[in-house]
């Protein structure tokens, strides 16, 4: 954090009093307000390896950071992820450490007003993912008005922030969109054991904010919610503090709160063939506006942490079908060894979730651990906020969850308490494009 004071220069160039920001790294190139200075550090690459992965990722969803005004690449964490691309970032992107996920209800009946919001949101998302403030910035503006940006991300790096929008089934009851609702965006069936809280389920819209810094993710949701007041209102939101999946096979699979590596055989963000087959909606899938998009299932899965912790090691390993130390499938030596399903108990989690058990169904998992303090009974209010992307839920989450909900030995220790499904539109191509344009304009 070797910060250079640059504000002195800015003051002389500005007729407004400017505070030192301590945020911009490079000397400011021109008379600038904080709305135009990159307020978070401009960096390229994510720990070296990430740079290569990012650049190679499918459809340019992940790419190296901006930009014209930061010529010097720095091999440090916290880079920016490109906002524009054929697919939305935040799906194939190497999984960031933190999550703030928000579901919204639409409050307006005015289609033009809603379209304007999508445009405003797109602009703000473009700026924030690049590490900039929204609107006119967080300070230095009119003293009588609240600043456009709330300011808590000043001085923080872009932190690989990605913002991913989704449209829930209920959105298509509005704005004469009924005909546009994809068949695959169905209302999820009830699964055995579900104990869903309506207040933590569904939503007309969602925004997934992932970043390596939690404050950057929260800042993004907070500012988008603020821009949306009067048009949309947050229905529920979820913070996630630790990633439980990896889309980069070179990385260790992160452990969930049960202490196990789960989701080892995730789809890699670099595997364009697998992504095309299992994650991205193709031109022929229909409807046309979804080409390049995906479907997201979000499930809030509460874990009975205390009873799990009292379970013997043998039983824990039997339930998952992996050993706890290495994460190797039963009878194998290494985490990524091909599992021999018949060696596992019939109700083992890995066996039931495996594609071979589910007609080849594969999903891209991007879940996060959560702990929302404790419940009134002194138990950790903790678990997994499960996020899965797929080309078609009927060939992805639904068959897998049907087999798990029926028989998974893990069910004794978990309960699904929140659920939502969203259609994830394709990426924002360029500066003139906006979230949901193909859906609302009828032009691909």
């Amino acid at each position, binding site marked *: 954090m070797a*910060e250079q*004071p640059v*504000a*002195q220069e800015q*003051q*002389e160039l*500005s*007729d*407004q*009093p*400017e*505070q*030192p*920001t*301590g*945020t911009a790294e490079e000397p400011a190139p021109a008379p600038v307000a904080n709305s135009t200075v990159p307020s978070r550090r401009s960096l390229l690459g994510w720990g070296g390896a990430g740079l290569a992965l990012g650049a190679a990722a499918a459809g340019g969803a992940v790419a190296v950071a901006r930009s014209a005004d930061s010529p010097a690449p720095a091999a440090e964490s916290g880079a920016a992820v490109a906002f524009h691309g054929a697919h939305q970032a935040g799906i194939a992107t190497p999984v960031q450490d933190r999550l703030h996920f928000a579901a919204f*209800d639409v*409050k307006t009946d005015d289609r033009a007003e809603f379209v304007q919001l999508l445009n405003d949101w797109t602009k703000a998302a473009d700026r924030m993912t690049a590490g900039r403030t929204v609107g006119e910035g967080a*300070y230095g503006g*009119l*003293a*009588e*008005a*609240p600043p456009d940006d709330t*300011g808590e991300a*000043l*001085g923080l790096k872009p932190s690989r922030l990605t913002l991913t929008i989704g449209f829930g089934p209920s959105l298509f009851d509005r704005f004469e969109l009924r005909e546009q609702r994809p068949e695959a965006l169905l209302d999820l069936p009830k699964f055995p054991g579900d104990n869903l809280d309506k*207040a933590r389920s569904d939503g007309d819209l969602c925004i997934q904010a992932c970043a390596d810094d939690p404050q950057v993710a929260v800042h993004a949701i907070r500012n988008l919610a*603020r821009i949306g*007041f*009067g048009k949309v*209102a947050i229905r529920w939101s979820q913070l996630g503090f630790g990633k439980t999946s990896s889309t980069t096979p070179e990385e260790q699979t992160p452990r969930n709160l049960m202490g196990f590596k789960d989701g080892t055989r995730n789809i890699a963000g670099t595997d364009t063939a697998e992504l095309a087959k299992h994650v991205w909606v193709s031109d022929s899938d229909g409807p046309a506006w979804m080409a390049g998009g995906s479907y997201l299932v979000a499930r809030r899965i509460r874990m009975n942490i205390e009873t799990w912790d009292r379970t013997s090691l043998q039983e824990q390993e039997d339930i998952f079908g992996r050993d706890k130390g290495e994460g190797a499938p039963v009878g194998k030596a290494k985490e990524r060894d091909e599992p021999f399903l018949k060696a596992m108990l019939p109700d083992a989690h890995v066996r039931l979730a495996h594609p071979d058990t589910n007609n080849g169904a594969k999903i891209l998992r991007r879940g996060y651990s959560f702990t929302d303090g404790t419940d009134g009974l002194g138990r950790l209010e903790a678990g997994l906020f499960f996020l899965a992307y797929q080309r078609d839920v009927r060939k992805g989450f639904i068959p897998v969850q049907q087999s798990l909900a029926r028989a998974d030995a893990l069910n004794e220790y978990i309960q699904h308490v929140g659920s939502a499904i969203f259609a994830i539109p394709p990426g924002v191509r360029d500066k003139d494009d906006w979230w949901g344009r193909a859906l609302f304009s009828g032009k691909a």
Partner: protein
Amino acid sequence: MRAVRLSVVTAAATAAALTAVTGCTEKSSAQGDDSVIAVTATDTKCEVSKKEFPAGHIELAIENKGSKVTEVYILFPDDRVVTERENIGPGTKQTVTAEVKAGDYRIACKPGMKGDGIRQDVKATGGGTTAKRDPRLDAAVAAYRKYVQAQADETLPKVKVFADAVKDGDIEAAKKAYADSRIGWERTEPVAESFGDIDPKVDVREDGLEEGQDLEKDWTGWHRLERSLWQDKKITDRDKELADLLVKDLTDWQNRVGKAEITPTSMANGAKELLDEVATGKVTGEEERYSHTDLVDFKANVEGAEKSYELLKPVASENDTALTKELDKQFAALDALLDKYRENKDSYEFTSYDKVGEDERKQLSDAVNALAEPLSKLAAAVVVK
């Protein structure tokens, strides 16, 4: 009831706390040295770089060189607050700006954020550089001043009905008169709160008492009586004294409210503050926790905000048409939503808030956010550019 003070003159505090982290030196103002007053606060002193400065836009460049967290105030001679900055940590710098007319002021530092503070008398000289104001805004201020006075004048007889019922020991009559006696106050609360001493006497809630304050001895005003009527279900001799005291304190309000400092900006920000009151106190049901008459206060707060808005609208709509269009729409939406909770639009008999479910409260909260967000931009639309 929060200790929110009306921003009687435009004030903005800027967070320069980052300076300490980055090692940047505090800037000098780009506006010329005349308007900048350096304030050096320590645990025992409050030094100012000059005691006279031209009226108009001023800036306090505050540095806390003490070991305690401090606050810095600009006060009128009668202790009304012009502007303030709280939570200035040891070793940090903050900037506060204000627009002041010619006259006497005090700058006060409060090390440890306690007590009356260490004070310095200062003077704003000359006619100042305040730009000439749109006569329509002057008319708006005059009309609002009249409104504020009328609210106080109409409230006092209602307060007397309430107080008389308490003194008669008539619980039912007192309950009936309670909410009605508060409407005028709630409509103009930010102005009343700009007199720092009245609000804590008449409108403090049980949770607003400080450590060591006694529920029986130190708690006065409407909400103490609310608790007696609805929670304790009895009227004590002390309550009868409190009823008289309430009339006395509100008479003081009636006598002083017409002299409050009011500007177009303070009207606009006062409207926003009324919605803040709704968002933090009424939507949660905290304000009227015993009587559950929160929706009456809610309605009164919205009416007060709407009054300010209507008066400022002719100018605001020229400067920002999209904003006033949005405000018209959101005021109408919130009014329509509130109307669902009363049978008769001419009556202030609203549904008891304990009968308003979680889903309905969420709807109300969403509607408040939908209005308050654009309302926070109203001040900018009436500022002299």
